[in-house]
């Protein structure tokens, strides 16, 4: 099929102003921008919780029990008369914190273990079999067992999420390293006498970052979801902390009389996860369309 508009032999170079470049970037990456904006908004809500017209999220006020959403209480009140709006706003803190920490820890551990596994053949087999073993357990189940067997605390929830999420990261890094180690630039670095640690940090690490960041966003999204799920099941954040999962767990028997108690925390949770997923998809397409296939 002939090209309907053949490329001119000479494309005049037109310098774009910074504003034009920005506009073009936004036009080309709408999902990523939408995701980033939504996530930034959530982060602002989390940081600015004390200034967002909230009352103390744990203050009980029995006279105002189960009030439906209105002027005084935007998201209504729960069975103890606590202001649902304030609780939901404060709940964003725990979700984003857990998500960020889990994504950061998994990336660091995954990077370290993956680099070693990809380059040190003797350790590779052992490491990968251990990862297979962890991956043979469904992630939510593994997290449930871990938290159930330890004390419920934010720290333990984070550990419980890092364990099942790490193998995927290790696999990703390892698969990239296996390709990279055959590349001429690695060979020449070796030939020039670069030692293993230097090779890893200076030559391999920078090349794994893009896919790692993308995978990190997916880890963050599932960490936020699973943290809420764990709390909802009573195996997550301690019940006195107003996390979205906890709020919904307490409200579950009021689905008939006070549906708003379930509606708002779930909506915030879904929007947060959506924003992270959109950002991740956008970053994936932006950084390297080919890595899309290596994911999941």
């Amino acid at each position: 099929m002939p090209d309907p508009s053949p490329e001119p032999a000479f494309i005049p170079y037109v310098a774009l102003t910074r504003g034009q470049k920005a506009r073009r970037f936004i036009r080309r990456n709408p999902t990523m921008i939408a995701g980033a904006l939504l996530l930034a908004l959530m982060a602002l809500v989390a940081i600015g919780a004390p200034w967002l017209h909230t009352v103390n999220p744990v203050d009980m006020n029995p006279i105002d029990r189960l009030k439906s959403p209105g002027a005084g209480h935007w998201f209504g009140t729960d069975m103890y008369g606590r202001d649902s709006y304030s609780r939901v706003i404060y709940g964003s803190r725990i979700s984003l914190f857990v998500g960020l920490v889990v994504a950061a820890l998994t990336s660091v551990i995954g990077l370290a273990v993956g680099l070693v596994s990809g380059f040190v053949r003797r350790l590779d087999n052992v490491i990968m079999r251990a990862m297979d073993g962890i991956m043979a357990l469904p992630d939510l189940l593994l997290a449930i067992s871990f938290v159930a067997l330890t004390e419920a605390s934010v720290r333990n929830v984070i550990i419980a999420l890092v364990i099942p999420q790490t193998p995927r990261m290790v696999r990703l890094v390892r698969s990239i390293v296996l390709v990279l180690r055959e590349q001429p630039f690695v060979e020449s670095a070796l030939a020039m006498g670069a030692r293993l640690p230097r090779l890893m940090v200076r030559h391999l690490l920078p090349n794994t970052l893009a896919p790692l960041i993308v995978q990190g966003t997916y880890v963050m999204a599932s960490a936020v979801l699973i943290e809420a799920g764990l709390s909802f099941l009573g195996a997550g954040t301690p019940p006195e902390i107003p996390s979205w999962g906890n709020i919904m767990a307490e409200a579950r028997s009021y689905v008939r009389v006070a549906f708003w108690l379930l509606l708002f925390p779930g909506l915030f949770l879904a929007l947060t996860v959506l924003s992270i997923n959109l950002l991740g998809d956008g970053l994936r397409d932006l950084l390297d369309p080919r890595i899309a296939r290596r994911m999941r």
Partner: protein
Amino acid sequence: MLVYVLRRILATLPVMGIVVVFVFLLVRIAPGDPAAIIAGDYATPENIQKIRVGLGLDKPIYEQFWIYLTSLARGDLGRSLHSRLPVSQLILQRVEPTAALALSTLSFAILMAIPLGILAAWKAGSLIDRAVMVFAVGGFSIPIFWLGFLLIYAFSIRLDLLPVQGYVSFREGLLPFIRHLILPTIALGLVYMALLARITRASVLEVLQSDYIRTAYAKGVRPPGVLFAHALKNAAVPVVTTIGVGFALLIGGVVITESVFALPGLGRLTVDAILQRDYSIIQGVTLIFALVYALVNLVVDLSYTLFDPRIRY
């Protein structure tokens, strides 16, 4: 083929071995003392010690592991710390609702997602394609328990069309059985559907761009013929792989869904065990789920030959 099946089963064994070690260690490393939990709040130290000896927890850890391993080999998953009933018996009692939910979700998700994915790929770039992709991203972001409550609120409480919660065995009538499963199936199936639709779309799209598809067009094969006779079978392998890998989502989701819809299945058993800190039940259920997950992926691996004769064993 038979040799391959055997070899593939043997390859699953080391992984299962690691799972067993993991599940065993999980309980031993945990800070809580099972003996103290059984003994209750008012137990004397002597009492706790007696229970500890009774459970074999005073023995060195490798001896404990050997005991654990040999009893597993006999199909003995231990006894519940609270009711003292065999864990295997407790699990068997709860299998039916979970199996029913998993099977209905699996079929629902596959039957919905694959046609949607194919349609999206076939009409790539169209409004339908965009809608499917939006749905796929959205489905990944909606928490199962939230969706569950939304469905309960809309269809059971407001519209009064379906039962709110609970489970009715198929032996007590097919219609109530199905009616009780509809909402849990949708709630649990959405994530799985989103995942499958996305992979199906990507896979079909990739196949449609390959050379032999162009050849088929050039020979004069009509578009439906190209899609059904040439493209779909070759796009199947990644989709089937994802059905297997995504089964983990289903297992995790089962626990949450059963909790939301009060289904008396394995997930419910797990959650009750968490609340009572009943270690042996958690161990047993985790092991069973891991086994099922491994089996599903084994079947998936074996099914590759059906779709791609180039994969020979």
